[in-house]
């Protein structure tokens, strides 16, 4: 459980690093192209965002606010706080990520199982092909290509925006296929490994049906490597969602995050970095807990 205690420390490191990287260096969002009309306005703006205080006070204030869950005002969307914007965009991104994860698991695990059970069969070839696609066709290539083929040439699905289920098909596929490929590969390798082990032989020897052997004695064990990879996979899922939201113009967190880089919206950037770090920690923790539950040997 040292992992749980480590999360606040990590977040503190992230908050400190991003604060000093972005804020400490001279030159701020009010300096150049966005110079306010007059000195008074500038002073008022700076006072409003507490930019006139010494740096260590600003840092203390920021940390204090973050600890209360307040990420501060957005510098670009003047009437919104970062919390507001996160509140609006996170559900969209989570829905997208969740569906893509569903595709990855729902397609990857059965495919990996079938591929391992009949090596050289159609499922094995399908899994190998999917893996090849997953390795060689990154999300930012697959997305536009799916738009071109399924959206524009065949006109099966709408190519942008967010709302009805038809809108979700292409983004979910784009994000999900890549991970389905990786899940299928791990599942296949895990299954092949487990099928060779002696407890499977015992299970067969005592006369269990093949289905029972596979479902009760092989699949649960083969799931272990898949689960231990879900942590890193979820991190990649986050990065992938930046691209997917960009390609399909989905109003999710990733799109706002990328925009905050172009508009130099520092508080937004810091808030997003913190949010992503926290999300990553929590997801990693979940995958660890799940791993322990499936495989009690881990961590004992």
């Amino acid at each position, binding site marked *: 459980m040292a992992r749980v205690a480590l999360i606040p420390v*990590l977040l503190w490191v992230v908050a400190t690093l991003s604060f000093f990287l972005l804020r400490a*260096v001279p030159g701020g969002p009010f300096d150049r192209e966005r110079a306010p009309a007059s000195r008074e306005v500038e002073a008022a703006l700076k006072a409003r965002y507490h930019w006139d205080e010494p740096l260590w006070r600003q840092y203390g204030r920021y940390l204090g606010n973050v600890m209360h869950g307040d990420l501060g005002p957005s510098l670009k969307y003047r009437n919104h706080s970062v919390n507001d914007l996160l509140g609006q965009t996170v559900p969209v991104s989570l829905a997208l990520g969740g569906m893509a994860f569903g595709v990855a698991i729902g397609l990857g695990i059965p495919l990996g199982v079938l591929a391992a059970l009949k090596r050289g069969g159609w499922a094995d070839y399908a899994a190998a092909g999917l893996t090849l696609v997953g390795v*060689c066709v990154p999300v*930012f290539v697959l997305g536009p290509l799916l738009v071109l083929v399924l959206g524009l040439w065949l006109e099966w699905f709408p190519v942008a925006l967010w709302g009805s289920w038809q809108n979700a098909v292409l983004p979910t596929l784009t994000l999900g296929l890549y991970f389905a490929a990786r899940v299928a590969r791990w599942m296949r390798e895990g299954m092949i490994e487990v099928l060779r082990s002696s407890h499977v032989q015992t299970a067969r020897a005592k006369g269990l049906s093949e289905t029972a052997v596979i479902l009760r004695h092989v699949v649960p064990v083969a799931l272990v490597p898949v689960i231990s990879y879900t942590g890193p996979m979820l991190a990649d899922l986050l*990065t992938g969602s930046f691209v997917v939201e960009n390609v399909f113009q989905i109003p999710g967190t990733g799109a706002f995050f990328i925009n905050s880089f172009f508009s*130099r919206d520092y508080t937004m950037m810091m808030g997003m970095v913190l949010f992503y*770090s926290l999300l990553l920690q929590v997801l990693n923790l979940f995958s660890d807990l799940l791993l322990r539950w499936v495989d009690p040997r881990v961590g004992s």
Partner: protein
Amino acid sequence: MNTLSSSPGRLALRRFLRNRTAVSSVVFLLLATVVSVFGPWVMAIDPNQGSESPFVSPGALHWMGTDIHGRDLFSRVLVGTRISLLVGAVGAGVSVLIGVTWGLVSGWRGGRTDAWMMRFVDVLYALPTVVWVMLTLTLFETRCVGWLSERWPASIPAFRLAAMMVSLGSVSWLTMARIVRAQVLSLRERPFILAAQSIGVPPVRLMLRHFLPNLAGVVIVYLTLTVPAVVLYESFLSFLGLGVRPPQASLGTLIADGASQLNSVRVRWWLLVFPAGLMTLMLAALNGVGEGLRSAFEPRDGNGD
């Protein structure tokens, strides 16, 4: 069997040359490198030179058609490939430099140093790396580019590229450090190292002469797997507009340009299909080489038994 000339390296090379996928990947990559380095120079077409004929479909004059500014897509794809390969190679080089040094020192010093250095790697693993790359690039963009544009504006693209290579390299070394450390830990107890130590070989010489040659295998294998990862990162950033900036081109910006021309009125497929296809082929070849090297150096993994 001729066991006399069968050093581990030579055996690995022989296994590698027998791997058809790996060899054709190498051939493809060499070809892509040569064509992308010398092609624009031979063709004598300026990839940034606009013309009066935008959106020409692929044909005899423009092999891959032209883009929105009437620029020849083929020459732009060549230049973009060159930049992507360059960033991949240098970025992976930076990551090897950091990773090998870190792993060597950590594994060699052992004890508390090792514990702290590896704890540091664990912490970095837990952070969203791409986000950090974006942060450092923005920092470079806001601080250094303004400073440079007053003094030496012509150098901005080169510095921007360098910043990207360094920042990508500086987040990709973690796994390398772990692998090298594990290898060093196992080497440290081997008789030849103990023997070298006992006759008083100084530490630096010990590292260079006795450790590094024995690390070469794992380092080469992992290096070749890092190159496609860095190429991918670079294109990802450029696709989002955070990496290579116009008028310079990388495969990422070309794919982004192609994607932005997708609309239901007129489909200009060539703008997307050519750069995307090349990206796919390159990633396939880079991974093919990496996997080939891995199964050549670690035959257990390669043949399944």
